[in-house]
């Protein structure tokens, strides 16, 4: 059991959770993720690390309620059954900042993708990088932790599909316009956004890193549920990733594989709503 310090709604569909999990973050670097289980019989849910305070042993997570398991997570108040981490490989730039000295880096975040982008930018700032972020979502209310992002970035370009905040349009609109100012792009968000970003940067032959978020069970290389096609070969996002060369990912396949349990998950959610209604 791990103590929950905070579990609060920060947007119409997202929550911020703070847990005491010193071991999961002691050796963590940005880009890595954790797996959490709400209760003993819960599903294992992979979540990217949003923030962490190694001295206090506090891990912060931002998650979106998208099904029965994340719904259950949002109801927890005191304790969470399991927090496993850090898992996966750290972001390549954060792991070797010296190799990237002098490079101009643009981060592109979509929706809840700002959560894993934030610790990377924060970390790289501490290593002397000046980093800009392009952050987009459907509408203003779905833009998260704006103040935090502005704290660590040199500049944040906002876009919304409906124009309710920042520029109206997509992150790729801003990226196309600003791309000549940068050498490297890191994109984290919905698969379709990462695909569109990679399509833009490919034209300019710009190094691009994306973070995949496929289905997972154990998160330690055992089940192969998270396999992605990278350069035509299967790779496990949990141990070979989650970050990959954005120009080598088969995004169409990744999108299809997100739907493997769509029907079953819907049933589980119905089942859960019913049982909640009973009590």
């Amino acid at each position: 059991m791990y103590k929950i310090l905070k579990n609060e709604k920060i947007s119409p569909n997202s929550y911020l959770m703070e847990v005491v999990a010193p071991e999961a973050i002691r050796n963590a670097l940005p880009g890595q993720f954790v797996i959490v289980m709400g209760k003993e019989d819960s599903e294992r849910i992979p979540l990217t690390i949003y923030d962490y305070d190694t001295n206090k042993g506090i891990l912060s997570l931002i998650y979106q309620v998208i099904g029965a398991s994340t719904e259950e997570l949002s109801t927890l108040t005191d304790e969470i059954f399991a927090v496993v981490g850090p898992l996966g490989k750290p972001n390549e730039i954060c792991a070797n900042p010296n190799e990237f000295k002098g490079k101009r880096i643009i981060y592109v975040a979509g929706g809840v993708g700002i959560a894993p982008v934030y610790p990377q930018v924060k970390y790289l700032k501490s290593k002397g990088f000046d980093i800009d972020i392009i952050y987009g979502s459907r509408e203003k209310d779905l833009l998260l932790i704006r103040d935090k992002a502005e704290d660590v970035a040199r500049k944040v370009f906002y876009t919304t599909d409906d124009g309710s905040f920042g520029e109206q349009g997509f992150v790729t609109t801003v990226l196309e316009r600003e791309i000549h100012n940068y050498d490297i792009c890191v994109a984290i968000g919905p698969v379709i956004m990462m695909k569109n970003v990679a399509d833009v940067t490919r034209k300019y032959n710009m190094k691009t890193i994306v973070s995949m978020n496929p289905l997972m069970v154990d998160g330690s290389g055992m089940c192969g549920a998270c396999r992605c096609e990278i350069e035509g070969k299967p790779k496990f996002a949990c141990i070979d990733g989650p970050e990959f060369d954005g120009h080598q990912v088969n995004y169409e396949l990744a999108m299809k594989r997100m739907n493997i349990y769509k029907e079953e998950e819907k049933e589980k959610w119905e089942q859960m709503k019913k049982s909640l209604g009973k009590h």
Partner: protein
Amino acid sequence: MGTNEEVPWKALGGVIMNEERVKMKAQDPNVRNKNFEEVELGFTKEEALKEASRCLHCKIPKCVEGCPVNIMIPEFIAALKEDDVKKAYDVISETSSLPAICGRVCPQEKQCESKCVRGLKGEAVAIGSLERYVADEAIKNNFTTIIKVPKNKVTVAIVGSGPAGLTCAGDLAKAGFEVTIFEVLHKAGGVLTYGIPEFRLPKSIVENQVKSLKKLGVRIRTNIPVGNAITLDNLQQEFDAVFVGTGAGLPKFMGIEGEDADGVFSANEILTRINLMGGFREDAKTPIKHAKKAYVIGGGNVAMDAVRCLKRLGVDAHIMYRRGEDELPARQMEVHHAKEEGVQFDLLQNPVRILVDEQNNVTGMEVVNMELTEPGEDGRRSVREVEGSNHVVECDMVVMALGTGPNHEALKGSNIVLTEKNLIQVDENGTKTSLDNVYAGGDAVTGAATVILAMEAGKKAAKEIIERFKTV
């Protein structure tokens, strides 16, 4: 359902002996293929005593040689004959930490029972079934074997809580060592927990065996990914010795077209969802993909476990194996049980391509027939494709049970030496790695093998560690 018929008894050399081996009762195949309860029901006291009476108590017991952990088989059976189950349990406990598990999943027919003298003319004594009886009675009656060894203050870290790690931990704790096990999953047991299904090894049994290790003072720390949260180097510095028993958990795929379809899974994924996450239960929170007809590709024990799980979930479940019946690597018993339960065996066939619709769902497989060649110089028959035999079979799920490779995530950042086959290199005694005071054993050293061989390796490493830290 086969009941035990009246067994003929006769006097032989002053000992009353029945000739026929007592068969363990099992759930009816047509009932059990719809539930996840244990297939074999275990011996009753009468059955156990009757079977125990068949042991000849050989002066030089070959069965003991056949046991990887050298359980003193005639001694425990003798105690059983005297109806002293507690003593029988104490005898087994001297060499084995996990008898309730061994009694169920060891391939006894290839080990102790294959050496039994009674087997020369008739049937071997059912040693495995007797071991299980003793262990189950011990659990039922809460037997504990009292260990009087004082703590020696030597600390040992064990990476992985599978059969190798648990056995090593048990032996070290019994010798007074302070043992801490690190496990990445949320439950201890490794393959015993995530891999072997409930109907073959109830999880309550594994939990019980883990609990008895805790009673010996073993600490188990779950949710810790060694290699990330803490490195092997850290462990080497913080503990006097380290044992690495990380197993062979990395699933293999065939590399054929269509393998990334939504209905293609590794056997590990299916088994983990079902066993570790309890996915077979109606109210489970972890889903299992619905399927009408599934092919499990492979012929080993893992393939049998996966196919029998799917059968129980109401799937038309098939094994597809590229060799023939005689070449199936699974335990005979598992094949027999699978057939009884209605699993179909499509032998001498191999998929060459998985057929997929526009939504990436599996619709079938293109399959080629195989034939066995004449035995080569090594006496082994290989297989080749039958030209022009390609045909299509329909299905909506394909499960790859092609064996597993070592998963060295836990070794990240260390300089430990690996072999050409990507396994952990050990010395001629088979346990010491290239790093000081770091030992290894089980599938991570040998490649995928059996539970009992992993236990043997854990035992051997414990012995070396005890030897190494013996105070003079």
